[in-house]
């Protein structure tokens, strides 16, 4: 359940930012998660709820923006989008794919008061 430590890092970062930018409460946390980031959105949502209790993020809504997986297809010789690590190339159906992107795990922005 590394999603819990990921949420802990997220909330620590936001708590720092709350001191720096003087806000008291966060209503929305928007994060971007790539298909290859190795995290379960469900587990993230749960981890966020647990880790946010009693913090500036208590009660905040976690919005997860899903980013596609990217890979280079050796057969097509171009970059393609994949829905998961085991998906075949959407163009040629082949499996010789080198992942090139989609491991994002970023906080985009916050709605705060």
């Amino acid at each position, binding site marked *: 359940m590394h999603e819990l430590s990921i949420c802990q890092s997220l909330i620590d*970062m936001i708590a720092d*930012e709350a001191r*720096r930018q003087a806000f008291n409460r966060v209503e929305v946390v928007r994060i971007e998660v790539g298909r290859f980031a190795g995290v379960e959105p469900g587990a993230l949502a749960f981890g966020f709820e647990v880790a946010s209790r009693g913090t500036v993020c208590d009660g905040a809504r976690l919005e997860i923006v899903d980013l596609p997986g990217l890979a280079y297809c*050796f057969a097509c010789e171009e970059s393609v989008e994949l829905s998961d690590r085991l998906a075949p190339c959407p163009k040629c159906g082949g499996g010789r794919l*080198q*992942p090139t992107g989609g491991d994002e795990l*970023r906080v985009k922005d916050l709605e705060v008061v």
Partner: protein
Amino acid sequence: MCVTCGCGGGETTIDTGEPKRRHAHDHGHPHGHDHSHGHSHGHDHSHGQDHGHDHAHDHAGDHAGRTVALERDILSANARLAADNRRLLAKTSSIALNLMSSPGSGKTTLLVETLKRLGAVPAVVIEGDQQTSNDAERIRATGRKAIQINTGKGCHLDAHMVGHALEHLPLEPNGLVFIENVGNLVCPAAFDLGEARRVVILSVTEGEDKPLKYPDMFAVADLVVLTKTDLAPYVDFDGEAARAHVARINPSVPVIEVSVRREDGLKPWLDWLTTQRRAALEARRRQIEAELAALDAGVPA
């Protein structure tokens, strides 16, 4: 919670193997040594006074919400500490290897046999487990230095724990630093420790389909070691299929097959270690050449 570096991990303990040095990771710790891995994270921002007035003090609508753009990696604090570890290791051209696998795949056994064969090559070990110092003791029995990190309920090591472990280890020129991660084929993949290479270990008894079931782990591997190959016939392990599954996830990663029991395949593994040490020295040479060029050009490096 740690006031020095913000770590909340009351559960993590570090056992250096020296009497009475077993201390909770509570950071009241008066480490006499240099706490060098950049524990200033977070704190450079927290002195409220000089910042407090750039926010919306416009009283137009005190309670109106606003958007705060962050655009930052969630694990950026870990990434900073990993970079600190990497810098520290680079000073001695050391090579840190992050060994990841399920529990029981043979990591400690492989390390013990490796250390016995390394001769004069400097090597130290950081052991990660939820509980016990058993593995560190197995390593120490070979005469090498080992630090045990117990993560409590933590399912993976992180750069912060490794940074603290490194404080207790002698880093010798061009030495190997083996980091045995907590046994888990999922969680450790997400956390950079500052290693040079990630080694994923899969024992034949786990079955050849594991690369497909745990693709995120195999995707980050710089080397895959198939262990316990002496048992392959007993468990109908299909080595060809295993290699194909690894290649499906990570087309360029090399795969080495080892049986410690039969002392089989250790040579390619030891050669691979030498190649990594060589790469560290070459990086150092390039750096020195750049410094020489700058010096000759009369520009401060």
